[in-house]
């Protein structure tokens, strides 16, 4: 080989080698994810083996939680997790969608940027700060105003009966709603911004009002992306630990009243892990973690399926 040929060959070979190295590195990283996941599930399962052997699937339907007697059941925790997250979404979705729609479609240009920046800033606040704020500001306020009002007006419903403690399911749902709002808001805002202006123009040019253009053209186009935003919020709500445990009341109970204290899976694990001395208690907490994992995966899978169905049904592009 002549020196000049060697030079160019080396460059080419170098590039090819670099490519291969890069590809190998990426493949390894990609493989690490399922491996880690498998490892995680295995660890959870190994940790909960004792509790699984002791309580079986009855663990999921029992409401007993007695570390002294060594009897454990996770139903109140599952109930608390699902109900607080669902309620949080019920509050947060309309609000954040409304804000996102206002900011992309109706707000004056010069306030759009600053307002969305402020809302996104909310996502950066550590959850323990939310928890403290919940204890010192939100709960006293709710206990003095909103809760009595709900009790007076909707007190005929079982959800708004009984004593008002302050910390409880509704307080947790409200703080969760505040925490997931920035996520849902900013993702739906991105999704709405990604709706091509030609879609709005198409509707307006056909004589639609701004509102009709929104409901008839913009939202259908953004539909699957918005569902994605909601799922992101749901994921956050299901796993949120710190703020929830600070305001939910932490009692292993299922109550119809939303004023009553409750507990969630994540909160129980975080609270009791340090105090658990008995092996069976630790194992039960591990079992709770496994359950939380499975519940989260199931809910996410169902949500993906929903997005997929919606996208199939002539919806717009997914975000």
């Amino acid at each position, binding site marked *: 080989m002549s020196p000049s040929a060697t030079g160019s060959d080396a460059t080419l070979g170098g590039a090819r080698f670099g490519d291969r190295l890069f590809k190998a590195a990426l493949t390894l990283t990609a493989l690490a994810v399922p491996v880690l996941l498998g490892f995680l599930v295995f660890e959870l399962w190994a940790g909960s083996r004792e509790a699984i052997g002791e309580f079986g699937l009855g663990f999921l339907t029992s409401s007993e939680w007695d570390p002294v007697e060594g009897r454990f059941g996770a139903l109140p925790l599952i109930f608390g997790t699902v109900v607080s997250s669902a309620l949080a979404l019920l509050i947060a979705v309309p609000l954040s969608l409304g804000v996102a729609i206002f900011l992309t479609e109706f707000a004056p*240009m010069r306030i759009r940027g600053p307002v969305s920046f402020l809302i996104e800033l909310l996502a950066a606040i550590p959850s323990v700060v939310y928890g403290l704020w919940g204890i010192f500001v939100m709960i006293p306020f709710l206990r003095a105003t909103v809760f009595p009002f709900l009790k007076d007006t909707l007190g005929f419903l079982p959800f708004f009966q009984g004593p008002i403690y302050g910390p409880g399911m509704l307080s947790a749902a409200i703080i969760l709603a505040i925490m997931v709002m920035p996520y849902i808001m900013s993702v739906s805002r991105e999704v709405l911004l990604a709706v*091509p*202006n*030609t*879609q*709005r*123009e*198409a*509707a*307006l*040019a*056909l*004589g*639609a*009002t701004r509102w*009709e253009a929104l409901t*008839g*053209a913009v939202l*259908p*186009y953004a539909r699957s992306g918005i569902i994605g935003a909601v799922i992101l919020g749901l994921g956050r709500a299901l796993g949120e630990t710190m703020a929830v445990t600070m305001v939910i009341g932490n009692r292993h109970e299922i109550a119809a009243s939303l004023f009553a204290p409750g507990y969630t899976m994540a909160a129980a694990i975080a609270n009791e892990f340090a105090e658990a001395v008995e092996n069976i208690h630790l194992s039960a907490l591990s079992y709770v973690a496994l359950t939380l994992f499975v519940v989260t995966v199931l809910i996410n899978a169902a949500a993906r399926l929903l997005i997929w169905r919606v996208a199939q049904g*002539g*919806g*717009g592009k997914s975000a």
Partner: protein
Amino acid sequence: MTATLPGRTAMPHASSLKPTLAARGAPATRGPGGEPVVEAREFRFSYGPTEVLKGISLGVARNAVTAIIGPSGCGKSTFLRAINRMHELLPDVRHGGDLLLDGQSIYAPGRDLVDLRRRIGMVFQRPNPFPKSIFDNVAYGPTVNRLALKRDLPELVERCLRQAALWDEVKDRLHEPGTGLSGGQQQRLCIARALANSPEVLLMDEPCSALDPIATQKVEELIFALKEHYTIAIVTHNMQQAARVSDFTGFFDSGELIEFGDTDQLFTAPAHERTEAYITGRFG
């Protein structure tokens, strides 16, 4: 005003189809073709500080096709979109002068935009069907404007799709998404959708720019057939297309209307040398 008046006496190329202009004595601001449906009077438009339209005066004649040609960026789309106030979504735009529809100002305060846009349909440069079924796309206008009863919709949709020369291709798949059609079919779907509102005026902004020659020919035939019932204003970059489909042509350059007149006349004996340079491709 910079528009050159169209020749009013000698019209050697005017076909018998076209309305005669001679001896009508229309005022100078009017274009050819008698009482205009849409009329621009010294219309100006700016995006922020840049004035894009610098006093346009022309009339769009009833039941005729008026073509607007001119180099890229000269303000053709801006003008067309101003006619149904499509600029309203943009911040910081201003206009001056006036645009009239049937003699009434389009920009009058309190003008009902929904009614205006129902009467002035628009087909955009890029096909923009909704991600809905073909049927729902066409039915959208009549539904939001409450023009038709639900039970009359199938008939209306069929009629519009036939008018847009699309019916035979989609009649078995009306409930599939309109976004699944080919580009040319999508554009004809958008035309059908605009027709469903029974507009008086149809604005078309380069409706064939995304289409292949066969689809282009279909759309051109369609435009020719439509002018019996509609008044059409079309922006096009294609000289042959302007010559083929239009009765009147306006040549825009840098936000000014350089020349406006009978299509045959403008293409064979342009009065202005810039027009001639543009249509013969010697434009610099």
